[in-house]
């Protein structure tokens, strides 16, 4: 599906098939089109091209109230003039479900999100995390075909976010509802999703399982987004064998066996994860450098190592080194990812 606003393309060419019960995350920075995609799915924005099908029905021509998708908004959008219980039962009342059944379902869902005691309060009396849970409860109680979540955790503080991540995952396990989840936080996406869709500038960059996207990003943008903090523009100096090439930048020379779409000599982007760099004096791809800063992060250290005047690498290691000391690093050739140098 595509969505164009006047001259700017907000979203183009998103093609996706989602089996029932899957948890799909739409991931990307602000403005990449993920919220647009979600709003199109919900029916809040019309498509300019393309179609959406639910099983065998075509639904992009159906107004939002008839699509049977539940949605959790970023700002929760709880009805301020209704109590929590009334908020949650809203969708059921619209469906004209019998009173007794409504009560049952609402109580069940209240138990699930652990808000039973607060059922008769007003939204403004609850904290952010509690309001979030009400928003989720309201969306799932109608037992929709699909649950859409638009960055639901972005307004919460760090600790609460991690807690709620677990809760949402648990809920998904228990209820098995198909879920499409929008976020800009790659940690969230990795921990919760069955599959990730990485978006940038309205275009799909990569679709895959969390492991695939994490270990094998398909281009420089995805690598950068997934935490490959060492992103260097280097040159392919020569092809060593069929399966390996050499790239260099200044005094830095690396051998890579992970370079799917690079054919010619020329400029490329090279991505290395900080945790793939090891402190070692033997092994593949030895690099010499000087430690210019060391950040203590509890479990390990993040060292910034200067290789030459223009290049430095970030290394994660459990063993610290003194600032100013010389150090030797090594990285496996198949963990040196090489991509074509395209302008995003």
């Amino acid at each position: 599906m595509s969505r164009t606003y006047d001259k700017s393309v907000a979203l183009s060419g998103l093609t996706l098939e989602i089996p029932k019960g899957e948890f799909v995350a739409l991931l990307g920075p602000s403005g990449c089109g993920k919220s647009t995609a979600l709003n199109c799915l919900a029916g809040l924005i019309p498509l300019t091209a393309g179609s959406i099908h639910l099983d065998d029905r075509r639904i992009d021509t159906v107004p939002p109230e008839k699509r049977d998708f539940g949605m959790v908004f970023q700002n929760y959008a709880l009805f301020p003039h209704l109590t929590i219980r009334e908020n949650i039962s809203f969708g059921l009342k619209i469906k004209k479900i019998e009173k007794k059944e409504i009560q049952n379902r609402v109580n069940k869902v209240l138990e699930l999100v652990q808000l039973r005691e607060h059922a008769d309060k007003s939204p403004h009396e609850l904290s952010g995390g509690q309001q979030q849970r009400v928003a989720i409860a309201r969306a799932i109680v109608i037992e929709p075909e699909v649950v859409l979540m638009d960055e639901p955790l972005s307004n919460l503080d760090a600790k609460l976010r991690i807690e709620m991540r677990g809760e949402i995952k648990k809920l998904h396990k228990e209820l098995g509802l198909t879920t499409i989840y929008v976020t800009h936080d790659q940690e969230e996406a990795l921990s919760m999703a069955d599959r990730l869709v990485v978006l940038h500038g309205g275009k799909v960059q990569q679709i895959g399982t969390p492991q695939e996207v994490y270990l094998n990003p398909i281009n420089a943008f995805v690598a950068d987004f997934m935490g490959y903090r060492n992103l260097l523009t280097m040159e392919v100096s020569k092809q060593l064998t069929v399966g390996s090439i050499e790239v260099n930048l200044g005094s830095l020379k690396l051998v890579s066996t992970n370079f799917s779409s690079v054919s010619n000599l020329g400029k490329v982007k090279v991505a290395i994860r900080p945790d793939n760099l090891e402190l070692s004096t033997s092994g593949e791809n030895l690099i010499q450098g000087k430690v210019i800063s060391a950040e203590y992060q509890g479990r390990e250290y993040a060292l910034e190592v200067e290789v030459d005047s223009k290049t430095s690498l970030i290394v994660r290691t459990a063993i610290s080194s003194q600032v100013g000391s010389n150090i030797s690093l090594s990285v496996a050739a198949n963990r040196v990812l090489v991509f074509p140098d395209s302008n995003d």
Partner: protein
Amino acid sequence: MTSSTNIMLLDTKSNLKHRFAERGIDRVLLLIIPALTMMLIFFVYPSIYGIFLSFNPLNHSGFLGNYRSFFHDSYMRRTIFNTFRIALPVSIINISAALPVAVYVRKYVKRTRPINTLLVIPMSLGTVLIAEGLYAYLNPSGWLNQTLLDLGIISQPLRLLQNFWGVIISLVISGFPFAFLLMLSYASSINPSLELAASTLGANSRQVFRLITFPLLAPGLAITFCLNFVLAFSVFPSAELLGNPSGDSHVLAIAAADAVTQKFDYSMASTISIISAFFELFVIASVFLLRSKLYSGSTAGTKG
């Protein structure tokens, strides 16, 4: 020799100045005094004086003398009826028109500034100018009647002057923009994601309006009605110019002004003002009572 900086925090008895500051009283409050004094002298004092005046009739007929003579005089009694007959319909018309237009404009019109600007004009021109214009416009030979006659809609010119119709029209022209702009600001303060959420839960546009938009607008609607009502209830120049000031447009404000300018009976004038204020408060209180009753009703009684 090394020098060191010592910062000592001593636990001292808090003095009076600090204790006052805790409660928000400090020199800054002095800034209020000039304005407050003006208000006290020229608003609070005269108002209280007016209340006392009303209980002190010119003819020394006792404490409630003015009130009694007001209610005994049927001509005077009728002013209440006349005023209500003008103010209530006008307020109802204004908010009934303002509400749908405001909701529509908020949803579908992106650039509201031109409309707002145009609507501010009748408000700023004031009731006198509008009344003056209507005087010619609604005339049997004025443009309105001309058009209607030419179009064949009526066979005789409408009598819209020298009765309360002209007054009502005048109040609608100057009151509708006010009501609309007010309702627009109330409508705009409703988060649109609430209505989006309702539609994702299955509500069609009529249900969204009935269950979400309208209940959230209700407080604003009540306030707009009250404000409009109070303005209409105290109508004065329009009633004189366009209506029948000694007949069915003999409203409370005219009675009060006449008491001042013709009979020089300030006491009676104050009495009428107070009676007027009393009825206004009565209507305002009723509106809010009604609203709170309706409110609790609607949330409990949705279809199930």
